[in-house]
């Protein structure tokens, strides 16, 4: 299984702060496994993705395997 961690507003959109999905997952596979509103939000370039704690420069490069952790990171809040 792959753990999906949803931060900030994305946790509201996903209805939970963590989800588990079946491995393996690439970017298209991840979006297909999430509710459509969530998948749409993920394409917003301001929302970043980290795999096992490392930010991905290009989300489309996502390749996650069993026991990996994917974090979905909306823009950070200001002051």
């Amino acid at each position, binding site marked *: 299984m792959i753990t999906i961690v949803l*931060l900030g507003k994305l946790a509201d959109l996903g209805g939970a702060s963590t989800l588990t999905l079946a491995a393996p997952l690439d970017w298209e596979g991840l979006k297909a496994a999430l509710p459509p509103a969530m998948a749409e939000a993920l394409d917003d370039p301001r929302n970043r993705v980290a795999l096992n704690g490392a930010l991905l420069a290009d989300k489309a490069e996502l390749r996650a395997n069993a026991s990996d952790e994917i974090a979905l*990171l909306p823009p950070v*809040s200001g002051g």
Partner: protein
Amino acid sequence: MRDIRLLTQMFIPGTLIGPFTQANPGLGGVCTFVGEVRHDAKEHGGVEALELSHYEPLTLPGMHELADRAFDRFTLMGLLMVHRIGVLRPGEPIVCVSAAALHRRDAIDAVDFCMDHLKSAAWFWKREKRADGWHWIEPRADDTRDLARWQS
């Protein structure tokens, strides 16, 4: 002396700043900034609580990278950077940055630099509880402007 922390409980800035100052003997100046949760006016809905969430693998490492950049950019003897996470009430301290240096300009500028980056680029998500429920705080144009000050 370098002290970078995330705290889950209410803290009293003086209890951190005193020992930090002591730990940098021979300093010429210390500059400290403490940020507190604002009591917003009732007509704006009045903030009852502020919740900060973070992402463990990025947030603290990101603060350490910021400290590295501050040490590279300014001539510092010490840097204290403490940030709260969890649920806070108005009036509670949320962030404390203190810099010790031989000369005041390095201490003052390092605190300003760290604060601008903590506010706009550190991995924290904030939501406010008002009378009508929780609201996520969105990034503001001011934050980007604050960061741009350090890009030259």
